[in-house]
């Protein structure tokens, strides 16, 4: 192996192991910044020793043992923390010299990982900081990698992470395991962060920096880990299902010249059926838990909607009645104007354009949708289906003026022109 190859191998091992190592260290030193520094020390040791000795059989345990030893050194050196030294140094010492990590530690590792997820998504942190910290501590991404993912500078991300570490230090309670009620809220916070990361990757268009699509995979990977750590949470399985089903369409949603292809026009053979299969399985688990517990969260409902599309072999087979019913549920548990607009589309597909239009007409007064191009676009489509061509044309023109997307504008103006022709023909 060349030096570069060895280095890349060590980096790969690091990315597979670092989250668990950091999670274990956080439990011991109760300081995210220090835990990461100690873990970095272990990485440096690996980079020095492994090229000679080869990668050890259980590299995670090796890294952990080194980091623990460094932790002891740290507490011994820090005389200012003399009182802490006695208490922690002693406890660490006993563990460090019996490096048997293979037995009986499984439960601890799982608790440690869950705790680290909660800490990274702690409510005391801003959303941006939660995202950065999660990708750094749990994803093993470097600061430049995170910066590239979010199209921002290294300095910005670096500041975000150090500020987050400081905030966590001040919020002393960050390291406690939350009680049952709080646990649900903390899981919600993790889910929110993971979905944000996912969407950051999902919204990237083809040909953009590879780091951005990689965010989708990272969010799914962390979601699956969380599903293992909190197997009784319907929402966790629901989010995993939602992400996997959405990700299954990544390839099909872009045409040969980069133009967006709408869901109903997509070539379903190009969907990723491995992800669909996995997503539907996660959804089954989520639904059976939700049935037992008697509640379904928004991610689960959204996943169920996505699954209706995934199950239809051709667009015409889509179960719109069920989708409309699911949007009814969603508008009750997570109401928003955008959900209402989607509900209108589903109603139109299930019960005819007038049913959809009745709801859309109520939405034209909603301030949040005033400059949302999809509102006139949907309204135009429903009016056209009802053969109210002149009104439809006006709506398509309005939508064209509002959209930021050049290709979409062209498409909308074409539809407006089509309405003008149809309007003349019918009079």
């Amino acid at each position, binding site marked *: 192996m060349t030096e570069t190859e060895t280095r*890349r*191998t060590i*980096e*790969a*091992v690091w*990315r*597979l192991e670092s989250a668990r190592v950091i999670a274990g260290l956080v439990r011991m030193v109760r300081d995210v910044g220090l835990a990461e520094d100690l873990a970095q020390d272990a990485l440096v040791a690996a980079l020095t020793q492994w090229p000679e000795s080869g990668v050890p*059989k259980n590299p995670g345990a090796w890294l952990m043992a080194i980091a623990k030893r460094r932790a002891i050194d740290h507490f011994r050196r820090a005389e200012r923390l003399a009182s802490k030294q006695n208490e922690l140094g002693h406890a660490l010492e006993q563990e460090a010299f019996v490096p048997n990590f293979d037995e009986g530690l499984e439960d601890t590792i799982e608790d440690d990982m869950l705790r680290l997820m909660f800490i990274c998504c702690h409510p005391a942190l801003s959303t941006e900081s939660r995202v950065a910290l999660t990708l750094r501590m749990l994803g093993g991404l470097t600061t430049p990698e995170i910066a590239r993912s979010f199209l921002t500078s290294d300095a910005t991300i670096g500041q975000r992470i150090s500020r987050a570490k400081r905030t966590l230090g001040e919020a002393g309670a960050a390291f406690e395991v939350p009680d049952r009620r709080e646990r649900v809220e903390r899981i919600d916070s993790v889910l929110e962060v993971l979905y944000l990361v996912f969407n950051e990757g999902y919204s990237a268009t*083809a*040909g953009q920096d*590879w780091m951005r*699509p*990689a965010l989708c*995979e*990272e969010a*799914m*990977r*962390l*979601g*699956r*880990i969380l599903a*293992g750590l909190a197997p009784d949470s319907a929402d966790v399985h629901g989010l995993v299902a939602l992400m996997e089903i959405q990700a299954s369409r*990544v*390839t099909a949603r872009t045409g040969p010249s980069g133009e967006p292809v709408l869901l109903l026009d997509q070539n379903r053979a*190009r969907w990723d059926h*491995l992800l669909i299969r*996995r997503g539907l399985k996660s959804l089954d688990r989520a639904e059976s838990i939700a049935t037992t517990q008697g509640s379904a969260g928004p991610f689960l409902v959204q996943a169920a909607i996505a699954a209706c599309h995934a199950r239809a072999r051709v667009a015409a087979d889509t179960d719109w009645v069920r989708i409309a019913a699911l949007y009814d549920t969603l508008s009750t548990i997570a109401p928003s104007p955008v959900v209402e607009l989607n509900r209108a589309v589903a109603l139109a597909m299930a019960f005819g354009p007038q049913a959809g239009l009745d709801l859309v007409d109520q939405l034209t007064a909603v301030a949040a949708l005033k400059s949302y191009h999809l509102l006139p676009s949907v309204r135009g489509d429903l009016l056209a289906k009802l053969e109210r061509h002149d009104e439809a044309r006006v709506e398509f023109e309005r939508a064209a003026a509002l959209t930021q997307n050049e290709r979409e504008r062209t498409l909308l103006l074409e539809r407006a022109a089509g309405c003008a022709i149809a309007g003349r023909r019918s009079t």
Partner: protein
Amino acid sequence: MRFLSMIKMDESKPFGEPPMSLYAAIAEFGEQAMKDGTLLEQGGLLPSASGALIRLADGKVTVIDGPFTEAKELIGGYAMFQARSKEEAVQQAKRFMDLHAEHWPGAEAVCEVRQVMDPADFEPNAG
């Protein structure tokens, strides 16, 4: 990125049958990798006697039923991994092979790790 790992070995197993402990170790490895979110799918293949080869040569397609006596190493199982680099996929495969070394002394096998083509690989600007 996705990687397909295929384990290949001599189907006649001149080094004997795999011990039960190997199956247990593989199951545990698979469970962990699933929980880690990296293993997407895996499966084992029955002996080639239950398979067939469909060969194209000289413009003619012929079907030959198994066993595939000519091939020395045959695929016995596969796993689909999500990984962030080739090295990461190789590490997973290495761990899988370490289990074989530990539980099945004398066994010889090859694990082939291949990156699955991404639609982006077809794009003119890829790479």
